[in-house]
């Protein structure tokens, strides 16, 4: 009855049972035995409602506080609350606390744990010293208080350790004195013997060989390094814990306690090198230590080395892909660590700003240092996911099998940290690059492709049409064609890729809102084949390429104008210019149809001039390509009159006209000037691409100088113009 009333064999139940048994005159040993037997047959108690309420409340209070440590003080407060609000006894409440902390992955430290940890910290701080500096003493008291220990207990522990050191010192001193005495005596005795032997030899006038023995120097005392004074209580606690619990970090830890900043930096590098997917048990500790050291390290160069090592863990385009085993674990750990460092208390503002700048450089996004830790962690995780997608997209063409192997892990992580829209966008960009290159591995992308295509937003489906265009795998073509046609509710004229793409675009593009990035992507894909292939050797083919290049450059100029150029771009993309089919007599004569070329490029240059001269509409009186290019030059030259390049432009133009002597070569000359001005414009408006612009301009000069004729010059220089204006495209 007592057991049922108390809902199990609780402490209260035990006390009541013992009380009743004693009243009945039963001996203590028999009582204990009876209770043990009762415990063995005790039925499982029904759930205690109060305990469950307490559990729910505790779970609610502690969830989201992953860094909280449940020390003796906090635990005592929780126990008191459990008793006061839910009438739970200490044993049951302690059991619930243990279960909830384990469930939430929180660190729970008992008083004995705390004392042990503090003792380890005291050992480290005191080393073999017989006294302790005031600051170190205060730091230990602060750390101990954080663990929930009374100050008296902490002082007693420190005194005990120092007393032990003093005893050891006295013992050592006695031994030292004794050893010294013996050594002195031995030296004197040796001297006497040597002197005796010397005298004896001198007496015999003989020289005997002497042997020298090297004295082995005494090994230095293995004195445990004292904690650096710049460590705060949290860092000291983490370091003590790491040193006592994680032996694998011992080497790095020893270096990190050095007074030499170079050694500390080497220690940091060693520490981060230990981070690997198969050592996740050390992640949390190393995170705290790295964040603490990044924030508090007094030497800037050591902090920079630590920061650089940490940032090297982030994915970046061109760097080696992570291994297939838990591929992104380390990168996301670096994100969490960086977030922790940005909000770490005690960090110097300049250090935080430097870290934020470095992260901004890695991710290409500004980092807001004022965000609270949770939001900062989320933001950095998002940026890490984006960086990983960029890395995979860049590697998709060269390492399709490796990308296919590690993509699912990224997709899974990214889905958890990105918004649905961001996730869809990142996935689409990767899939468009990876699926056509995957070969037989495309099945990995089957479900994600279907997810993108069936999205309510038509844009991903439109982007996937680009993947369809580049795909050669028959099964993937069939899969994409079917999915896209169903999504677009369209019917293609034939199963031909071009017809499918046209039908899907026709159906979806009307309702879709294409962004500038989408348009740039379309242009890049249109231009890619033309930019990659070498110039044709046949003049007719050369002219055809020149016309296409002129058209694409004008499209790029349109996009570079922003929204005002979108309409021109969309119209131009849909209607590329072509030379009309030559008649049989023209073909047999080898007619280059130069006049038609002249007319087509004049139209495109005129359109380009209109885009660049938005303020002054281009009149219809413009006749040839050279007149339209002169207007383009005038538009690009608008700026400071004291710029030497602009001041010389009219003279350059006049000299080119004189040198050319005809409209065809004058067009070549004007292209040259347009390249100079376009490169200058890119350098000013996109300083990060100034080097690329200069290189393109230089390469154009070399290519033009070695061109076989004026047509080849037109083609080469228009290629350079297209490449220059493509520099306005946003980075993938």
């Amino acid at each position, binding site marked *: 009855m007592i057991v049922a009333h108390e809902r199990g064999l609780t402490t209260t139940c035990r006390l009541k049972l013992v009380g009743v048994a004693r009243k009945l005159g039963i001996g203590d040993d028999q009582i204990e035995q009876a209770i043990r037997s009762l415990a063995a047959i005790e039925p499982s108690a029904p759930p205690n409602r109060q305990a469950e309420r307490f559990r729910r409340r505790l779970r609610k209070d502690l969830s989201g506080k992953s860094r909280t440590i449940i020390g003796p003080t906090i635990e005592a407060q929780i126990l008191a609350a459990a008793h006061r609000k839910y009438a739970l006894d200490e044993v049951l409440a302690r059991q619930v606390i243990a279960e909830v902390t384990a469930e939430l992955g929180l660190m729970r430290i008992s008083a004995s744990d705390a004392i042990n940890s503090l003792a380890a910290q005291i050992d480290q701080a005191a080393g073999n010293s017989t006294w302790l500096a005031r600051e170190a003493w205060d730091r230990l008291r602060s750390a101990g208080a954080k663990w929930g220990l009374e100050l008296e207990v902490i002082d007693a522990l420190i005194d005990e350790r120092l007393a032990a050191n003093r005893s050891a010192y006295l013992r050592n001193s006695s031994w030292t004195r004794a050893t010294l005495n013996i050594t002195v005596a031995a030296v004197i005795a040796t001297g006497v013997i040597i002197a005796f032997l010397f005298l004896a030899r001198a007496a015999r006038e003989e020289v005997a060989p002497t042997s020298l023995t090297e004295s082995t120097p005494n090994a230095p005392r293995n004195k445990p390094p004292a904690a650096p004074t710049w460590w705060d209580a949290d860092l000291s606690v983490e370091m003590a814990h790491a040193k006592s619990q994680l032996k694998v970090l011992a080497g790095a830890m020893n270096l990190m306690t050095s007074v030499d900043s170079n050694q500390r930096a080497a220690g940091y590098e060693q520490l981060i090198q230990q981070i690997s997917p198969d050592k996740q048990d050390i992640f949390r500790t190393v995170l705290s230590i790295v964040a603490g050291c990044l924030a508090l390290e007094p030497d800037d160069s050591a902090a920079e080395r630590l920061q650089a090592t940490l940032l090297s863990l982030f994915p970046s385009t061109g760097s080696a892909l992570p291994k297939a085993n838990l591929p992104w674990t380390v990168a996301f750990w670096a994100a969490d660590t960086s977030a922790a460092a940005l909000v770490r208390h005690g960090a110097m503002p300049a250090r935080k700003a430097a870290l934020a700048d470095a992260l901004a450089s890695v991710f290409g996004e500004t980092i807001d240092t004022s965000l609270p830790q949770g939001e900062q962690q989320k933001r950095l995780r998002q940026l890490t996911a984006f960086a990983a997608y960029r890395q995979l997209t860049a590697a998709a063409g060269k390492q399709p099998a490796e990308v296919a192997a590690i993509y699912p892990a990224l997709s899974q992580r990214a889905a958890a940290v990105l918004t649905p829209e961001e996730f869809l966008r990142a996935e689409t960009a990767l899939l468009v690059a990876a699926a056509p290159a995957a070969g037989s591995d495309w099945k990995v992308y089957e479900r994600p492709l279907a997810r993108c295509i069936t999205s309510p937003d038509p844009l991903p489906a439109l982007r996937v049409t680009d993947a369809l265009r580049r795909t050669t795998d028959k099964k993937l073509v069939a899969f994409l064609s079917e999915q896209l046609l169903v999504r677009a509710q369209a019917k293609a004229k034939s199963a031909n890729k071009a017809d499918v793409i046209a039908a899907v675009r026709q159906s979806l593009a009307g309702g879709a809102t294409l962004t500038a990035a989408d348009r740039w992507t379309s242009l890049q894909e249109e231009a890619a084949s033309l930019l990659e292939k070498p110039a044709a050797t046949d003049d007719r083919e050369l002219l055809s390429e020149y016309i296409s290049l002129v058209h694409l450059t004008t499209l790029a100029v349109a996009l570079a104008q922003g929204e005002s150029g979108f309409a021109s771009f969309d119209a131009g993309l849909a209607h590329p210019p072509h030379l009309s089919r030559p008649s049989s007599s023209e073909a047999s004569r080898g007619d280059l149809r130069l006049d038609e070329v002249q007319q087509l490029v004049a139209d495109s240059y005129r359109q380009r001039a209109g885009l660049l001269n938005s303020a002054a509409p281009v009149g219809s009186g413009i006749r040839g390509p050279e007149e339209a290019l002169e207007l383009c030059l005038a538009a690009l030259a608008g700026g400071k009159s004291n710029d030497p390049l602009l001041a010389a432009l009219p003279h350059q133009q006049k000299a080119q006209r004189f040198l050319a*002597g005809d409209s065809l070569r004058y067009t070549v000359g004007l292209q040259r000037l347009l390249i100079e001005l376009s490169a200058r414009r890119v350098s000013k408006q996109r300083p990060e691409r100034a080097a690329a612009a200069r290189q393109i301009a230089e390469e154009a000069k070399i290519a033009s100088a070695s061109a076989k004729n004026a047509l080849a010059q037109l083609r080469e220089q228009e290629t350079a113009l297209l490449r220059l204006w493509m520099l306005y495209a946003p980075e993938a």
Partner: protein
Amino acid sequence: MRPKLNHWFNIEVCIAACLAAAILIRPAHAVVVLPKGAKQPVMGYLVRQDDRTIVIRQELPGGKSRESSFPKKDLDELIITVSPERLSSLDPNKPQTYREYAEELAEKQRDPEARDTAIRLFAVVAARGDDQLRHSALLGLIALARHADEERLFRAAAYIFSSEHDPAILVASAGDAAAMDLSWSEVASKRGLTPLPPVSLDRLTEFDPATCVYRGGKWVRP
């Protein structure tokens, strides 16, 4: 196996022949002589001369050559056009010395070697000289142009690289002005599709102005 004695003898003879050739074969001076009463000058390379006679080697069609001896008293003029000693003495840090010698050679432009050397020296001055020297060299190049397209290029360069940008330098013929109105197909048929040359001081001529030191009969970089 030891080489035979006559084998060593052959080697020694070859070495001696090479040394003799190296000593005897020296760059000959280009000369132009104008015999009294002759309408055409004789151009060739100086073989030898003394107080009274001069021997010239003339290059003949088909790769052959002929040595001709002229008494000095029968000559109206004897011009040694390009002097290797003068070329060797030119100092890249003093571009004016290049201009001075180029102007001397330009006066003997009937000799192709003198004209080419003058063009080379003017090109060096244009690339290495100050504004005044450059302008002077470019004007000198215009006078030495070997064909109309080259003259057009030198004029364009003289106009662009002069601080005054004198439009009088850009003298266009009436035909040039009309060519601007030709369609591209007409341009291709009448003027051809030759490329437009770059107007760059480094590429004005076929000579690289960076190789501006004359050593051992060759132009090298300083």
